């Protein structure tokens, strides 16, 4: 029974006359833990090596084995790398989800599936290719366990033939993924070839194809957590503490690997300390202890961890200790959807802890910025002597993105206002919390500074300029006003917002973080589909730069796109902007846990625009 013989007839109205070339999405559905990850990486890399703009997203369950997993690859000749809402090619390997997966496809989609799954009868408007995967891998290895894994590499071969992916690039990608593991490389090559060969014997009836192009020259493929880890290492981090939590664990694990390789003294000692703490309270406590003692210290976590860190973050804010905290956001509240993406911690993190607190937030929107904002965050934390949060998310952190090579940091580190022994000898002493420079930032000393006037008493209790305990109302108010001034100063220090457009459009869009990739595509869709011009301002830091208010000032309607229910960034804008501008803000909020897609954003904005002009 050959695949060709059992394939359904060509769906009506979908003659493969006009090909869809270099512009479609692939979704691979497998049970979690079935070993499809390397196959999907090979597929992604092979497409990338053919010069196609690609992105890869893993949609996985909170589970080690068994629950359904989907991996989507988008190929876009126009360079769009946000999630595409519609699936054009489904690889159905998971009996549990296959039926629903097929029923959810748009007409004209292609289904490559395990032959025993009876899917062909479900729809008449799709192209089905049943593949006898068990038989394909039979000849590759006698080991049943390995065979099961290799079924995944066989679909790579089948897809390569169906889509005209160059076999040489598949082989190169296999070489890259399996590296020095010669045996693994060989059997995987054999499995891919078996798939290729089998698919060579069937009739291609669908219209999806790829063709080599020059769409990604010089680029890398990397996930945001790896980029953030590299950013922190090149920012000179010396103390790293963590408590494992999805989706931030791979940031620290990646960092540990790089630190071990690149950060040892000539005699082999580490120039860093990594501690897996007992919980997030301890992780951030160690960061604050280390920051107080002068180290560049960081931790990485996600929403539940940030909640736990609240009290100590408040202490660091008030005692004025530098700290860098990466929040790789996932879906809350509570445990929520731990393996899905969101931007739901923005509001609570901006004001984390009791009393009047406010913290600078950085919003990297690309993996390049995940790298670059490492240096920004440490410089800012030490300059302002306060905790700084890098707000990334699961989509950015754990998925594969194309990126320009990371530029080596050219600027020296800004270690902030620290008085040395020599400074103290010259000055004869210092007042820790005195605003001598008018920017709200005092000068500090580090424990261990060998001068009798170096010591001061850091505390979370009320204190005067000399760090002495004080309950004096005037002293308290003056200190709190200075802290507000200090954090306000971050507006001019944080990465400036990025404007796309000439600023002359009536409609503006504000977005941040991983939403960027959907929004740039939305801007193009609005213009292409509805002739609607929109300027787009990507916010990269909080407190907001002056340019944010200026942007709202010149647009009649401003859509604030974000991945949470309560329009959290919009809420922060409301606290910041002049009251007259507030009616211009409109929330576009998504909270389904899937990476944001342009289609949904575009449709919502167009609907809202139509309401205005029926």
């Amino acid at each position, binding site marked *: 029974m050959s695949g060709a013989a059992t394939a359904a007839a060509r769906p009506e109205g979908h003659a493969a006359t006009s090909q869809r070339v270099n512009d479609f999405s692939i979704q691979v559905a497998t049970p979690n833990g079935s070993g499809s990850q390397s196959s999907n990486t090979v597929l992604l890399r092979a497409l990338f090596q053919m010069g196609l703009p690609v992105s890869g997203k893993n949609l996985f369950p909170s589970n080690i084995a068994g629950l359904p997993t989907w991996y989507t690859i988008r190929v876009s000749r126009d360079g769009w790398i946000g999630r595409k809402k519609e699936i054009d090619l489904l690889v159905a390997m998971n009996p549990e989800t296959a039926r629903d997966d097929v029923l959810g496809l748009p007409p004209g989609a292609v289904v490559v599936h395990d032959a025993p799954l009876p899917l062909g009868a479900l729809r008449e408007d799709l192209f089905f290719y049943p593949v006898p995967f068990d038989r394909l891998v039979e000849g590759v290895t006698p080991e049943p366990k390995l065979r099961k894994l290799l079924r995944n590499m066989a679909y790579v071969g089948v897809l390569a033939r169906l889509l005209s992916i160059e076999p040489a690039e598949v082989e190169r990608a296999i070489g890259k993924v399996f590296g020095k593991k010669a045996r693994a490389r060989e059997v995987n090559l054999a499995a891919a070839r078996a798939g290729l060969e089998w698919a060579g014997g069937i009739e291609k009836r669908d219209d999806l194809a790829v063709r080599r192009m020059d769409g990604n020259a010089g680029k890398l493929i990397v996930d945001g957590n790896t980029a953030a880890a590299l950013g922190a290492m090149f920012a000179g981090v010396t103390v790293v503490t963590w408590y494992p939590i999805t989706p931030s664990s791979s940031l620290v694990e990646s960092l540990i690997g790089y630190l071990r390789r690149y950060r040892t003294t000539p005699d082999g000692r580490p120039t860093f300390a990594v501690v897996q703490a007992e919980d997030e309270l301890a992780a951030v406590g160690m960061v604050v*202890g280390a920051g107080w003692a002068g180290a560049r210290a960081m931790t990485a976590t996600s929403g539940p961890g940030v909640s736990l860190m609240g009290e100590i973050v408040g202490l660091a804010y008030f005692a004025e200790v530098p700290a860098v905290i990466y929040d790789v956001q996932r879906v809350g509240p509570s445990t929520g959807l731990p393996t899905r993406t969101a931007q739901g911690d923005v509001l609570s993190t901006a004001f984390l802890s009791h009393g009047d607190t406010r913290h600078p937030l950085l919003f990297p929107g690309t993996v390049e910025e995940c790298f670059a904002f490492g240096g920004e965050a440490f410089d800012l934390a030490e300059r302002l002597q306060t905790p700084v949060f890098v707000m990334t998310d699961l989509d950015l952190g754990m998925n594969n993105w194309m990126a320009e090579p990371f530029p080596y940091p050219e600027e020296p580190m800004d270690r902030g206002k620290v008085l040395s022994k020599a400074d103290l000898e010259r000055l004869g002493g210092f007042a820790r919390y005195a605003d001598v420079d008018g920017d709200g930032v005092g000068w500090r000393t580090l424990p261990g500074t060998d001068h009798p006037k170096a010591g*001061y008493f850091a505390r979370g209790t009320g204190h005067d300029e000399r760090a002495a305990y004080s309950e004096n109302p005037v002293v308290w108010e003056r200190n709190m006003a200075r802290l507000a001034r200090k954090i306000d100063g971050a507006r001019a220090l944080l990465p400036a917002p990025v404007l796309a457009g000439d600023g002359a459009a009536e409609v503006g869009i504000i977005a941040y973080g991983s939403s960027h990739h959907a929004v740039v595509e939305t801007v193009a869709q609005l213009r292409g589909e509805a002739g609607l011009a929109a300027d787009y301002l990507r916010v990269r830091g909080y407190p907001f730069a002056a340019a944010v208010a200026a942007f709202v000032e010149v647009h009649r309607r401003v859509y604030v796109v974000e991945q949470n229910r309560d329009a959290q960034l919009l809420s922060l804008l409301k606290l910041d902007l002049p009251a007259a501008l507030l009616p211009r803000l409109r929330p576009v909020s998504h909270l389904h846990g899937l990476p944001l897609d342009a289609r949904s954003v575009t449709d919502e904005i167009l609907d809202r625009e139509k309401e205005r002009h029926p």
Partner: protein
Amino acid sequence: MTTPAAPAPAQKVNRLGLPLADYRGGKTTLCAGCGHNAISERILEAMFELGVPSERVAKLSGIGCSSKSTAYFMGRSHAFNTVHGRMPALATGAMLANRTLLALGVSGDGDSMSIGLGQFAHLMRRNLPMVYVIEDNGVYGLTKGQFSATADRGATLKTGVVNDLPAIDVCALAIQLGASFVARSFSGDKRQLSALLKAAISHRGTALLDVISPCVTFNDHEGSTKSYAYMKDHDSPLHELSYVPAQEDIAVEYDPGTTVEVALHDGARLRLHKLEEGYDPREKVAAVARLMETARSGEVLTGLLYLDAKAPSFLDVLGLPEAPLATLPEAAVRPPREALEEIVEGLR
């Protein structure tokens, strides 16, 4: 201390040439007679006598009466009064950043045995080099006298409230968790506490001192097992202690049958004149057993309970360089351009 015929005595100074006054701090705001004040005195005396430079010391504390006391001694040292129960994490971070510091943590029974028990446990387990003093009075003083987790079962508050849960034995716990120096003392036993503090300062690893320190306002009455009167009757010292500094190489005659010397990390020695036959502070299992026995009988076992002078500290385990991580030059902590190029190449 009579020196007849001597001229007006010069102010006594330590090996750094500093007077005791140099080790004082702010005026205490704790109650008159509070055991914590006596402990502050013993700490500053020990630091003075050992000639520890104040600049090298990082005082860390949590929240509570005990934790306030770091403001009342060694005013020249750096200090961080942190949040309730989280001093261990802050101390860990500070030592990671600068291993040349001498970390002195002051905590209380509420701070370390309830809200901060998790961090306490993991600090002991890591054997972080620091002196960790628990000023243990069995009650929450700043919130006006609620029982803490070290209060003994059956103890009563002034209001008549009876504690019906078992006490956590700080020392037995610390030994089990991996602390390498564990001692118990009493704020009223000047000689013993001084010797133990000096030995703790000479140790490399976590030196835990649980110091019974009566709360004169909320827990010094009949029915309390943490009162001055109770300690007077039930303090059961394991040995008489003398601290012999490393610099003093004087051979003193002692009877090896009744006295043992244990070597400390920095070359100092602690001389234990045995009151209790057969107790060896290097025996972990026996130490815990003895603590459990005395707890049952209502006695309070004091002295050096456990010592492993050679246990690797957390900083040794991490293999950190001698120089503080905090102040390594930029060239040491930012890998060269070629490193980034190599990494980027690998991601293509």
